[in-house]
């Protein structure tokens, strides 16, 4: 590599940028929260196909029909997902109640076909949230232990912080954009966890190797390690993102939350492995060295 970027001289800047991004993400999560789909909140989701162009307000009018008043449908969340196709989300309905809603829609719009109906019990949603949380925590601890054994504890913590960074940024992105999240989103988050740490480890592996070989200034050693692995980081993210973008554009709309989360998470994972994980490790190592030196200077009693 001819160009050598000096990452460590700017490490505080990168850490600050990410710090701000994380604060914004947490704020968005606390204020607006995530737009949770029925997998989390429970309820019934219809996937409807009409024979003509229909406006969401027309569907709402049908829902407000006194005939359906006992079902307490509320306004319903209506989302256009294709030509003459909508998803309609309402509180939990039994199959016979679902039929009544379909009958009312057919009375108003003529032929309406139901292409899918999902109905989820409230308890499943809360279990999903709990399981998601538990699995992210256990995965993180497992990864931390693995890195601490294969590398050193400082690498483990730095990698973990980069990982938390990526998860928070992804969550923050979804809180800000209000894109609905379902159970596939949990899988995407876990993938981001795996990807982020994978990416970070390649850089750490090089630092570990360079530490063994040569004695040089720590800052330039870390810089060199990042530069040496830079093309790999870019190419791997490039190929993975190509695959994800193909899924996002050409794939099924039902897993858009999944692919979008991967897109954001992988982009963040690449960024954090270069600009976050190594600087954290570097700053910590420098700080430890200073402390050791200070401790050595204190005269022994």
């Amino acid at each position, binding site marked *: 590599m001819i160009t050598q970027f000096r990452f460590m001289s700017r490490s505080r800047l990168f850490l600050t940028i990410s710090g701000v991004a994380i604060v914004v993400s947490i704020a968005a999560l606390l204020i607006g929260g995530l737009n949770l789909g029925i997998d989390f909140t429970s309820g019934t989701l219809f996937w409807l196909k009409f024979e003509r162009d229909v406006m969401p307000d027309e569907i709402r009018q049908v829902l407000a029909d006194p005939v359906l008043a006992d079902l307490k449908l509320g306004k319903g969340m209506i989302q256009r997902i294709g030509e003459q196709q909508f998803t309609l989300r309402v509180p939990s309905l039994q199959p016979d109640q679902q039929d009544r809603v379909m009958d009312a829609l057919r009375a108003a719009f003529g032929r309406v076909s139901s*292409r899918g109906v999902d109905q989820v019990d409230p308890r499943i949603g809360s279990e999903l949230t709990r399981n998601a949380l538990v699995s992210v925590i256990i995965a993180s601890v497992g990864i931390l232990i693995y890195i601490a054994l294969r590398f050193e504890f400082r690498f483990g913590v730095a990698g973990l912080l980069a990982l938390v960074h990526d998860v928070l940024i992804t969550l923050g992105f979804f809180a800000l954009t209000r894109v609905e999240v379902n159970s596939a989103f949990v899988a995407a988050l876990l993938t981001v966890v795996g990807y982020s*740490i994978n990416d970070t480890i390649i850089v750490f592996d090089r630092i570990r190797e360079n530490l063994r070989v040569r004695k040089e200034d720590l800052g330039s050693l870390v810089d060199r390690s990042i530069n040496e692995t830079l093309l790999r980081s870019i190419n791997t993210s490039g190929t993975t993102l190509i695959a994800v973008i*193909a899924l996002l554009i050409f*794939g099924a709309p039902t897993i858009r939350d999944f692919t979008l989360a991967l897109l954001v998470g992988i982009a963040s994972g690449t960024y954090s492995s270069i600009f976050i994980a190594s600087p954290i490790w570097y700053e910590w190592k420098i700080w430890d060295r200073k402390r050791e030196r200070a401790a050595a200077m204190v005269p022994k009693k």
Partner: protein
Amino acid sequence: MNRRTVRGLVFVALVVAATATTVHFEGRERLAETGGRSPLRLGMDLQGGVMLVMEVQEPATGPLTPQVVEDARLAMERRIDQLGIVEPVVESLKGDNWRRIIVSLPGVTDLESALNVVGRQGSLSFKLNGVTVLSGGDLLAEANAGFSSRTREPAVHIVLKPAHAREFARITREHVGEMIEIYLDDEPVVGGVIQTEIPDGRGEISGGDIDLKKAAEISAILRGGVLPAPVEHKETRFVDPTLGAEISRKSLIAGVIGIAAVFAYMVAFYRMPGVLACLALSLYIGIVAAVFMSLGATLSLAGIAGFILSIGMAVDANIIIFERIKEELRSGKRVRSAVEAGFTRAWSAILDGNATTLIAAAILFYFGSTRVQGFALTLSIGILTSMFTAIVITRILLRAVTDPRTSLGPRFFGALGGERK
């Protein structure tokens, strides 16, 4: 070519042959199973159908044990078998969710009917003047859907077991002119005044709202047997088969485009080694398909996504190795030794990187919902397979093309970006 190269290429050829054979035969088997629709077992979201999650409740007679859940599962399975659905899956969940049974009914479009067949307790009782005289889950010797011999309307013919038939004969003999009704769970399905003694324990359930579909449902419930405990539905999902087909088609297109784009990227960037990586990647796709088919795993939408993602990640190992070889070349090594050094030195990074991703995938598999598990499984198979193809296969191929005794030799290493010394 030296002996090691020849041995290596023979090995690659064997792997290719084994993969092709597996895909061919397993695929043919699945095609036969699914009636020619797909060489892979497809999940509900891809082929359409009904998916139910049922939770077994505390039985009236005692505590809820895993045996009760298993009995309920078997009864559900027997009932569904009566309906002639291709490849239904009825399985109980593990861990915290042991009370739950997940039922997948491919191609089924009637959610309410499915819920009825699976979820009704199915206990039959006879009431004389409103008082139960015969009841239980074990009354019948036979139950068949058909047509009433008197009215020609759809009906369920039932035959009581001999002991119960004798009891029933006694009751009908002693109570001619009185009212007898048959209840399915708490719902009266048929009733009438006893005209004469019924000696053979034969009867029929008909009339009311019983049509052909309903008759088939009731006979499936009665033949499958009573559930040992009440069940509640916790989750129902229905996907129209046309929607499933549309989603499969879209995912297939996305997969082909994604793979083609990754191939193009690799060849554009790494030239000859890139082509080798693509060959290894093609083999990777074949092996993953073979493993998937052999395990009899079900491919879901999340699984496809996991697979496409794993292709992006599968080239990672090759990228790490190629970048490393470039570095070794730059430091002045000759091609052959640069290739060897590249593989050796890239190993620790590849191992550690993939091990951590595997940790995440394993935990996903353990804690995830069924849909998430499909994704974790493809991801894990993908990671393990990609390490094999990227390291073992690509290495053999690279050795072969950089062999000084073949004409392919040194012309191609330039593509690695090194300056020839």
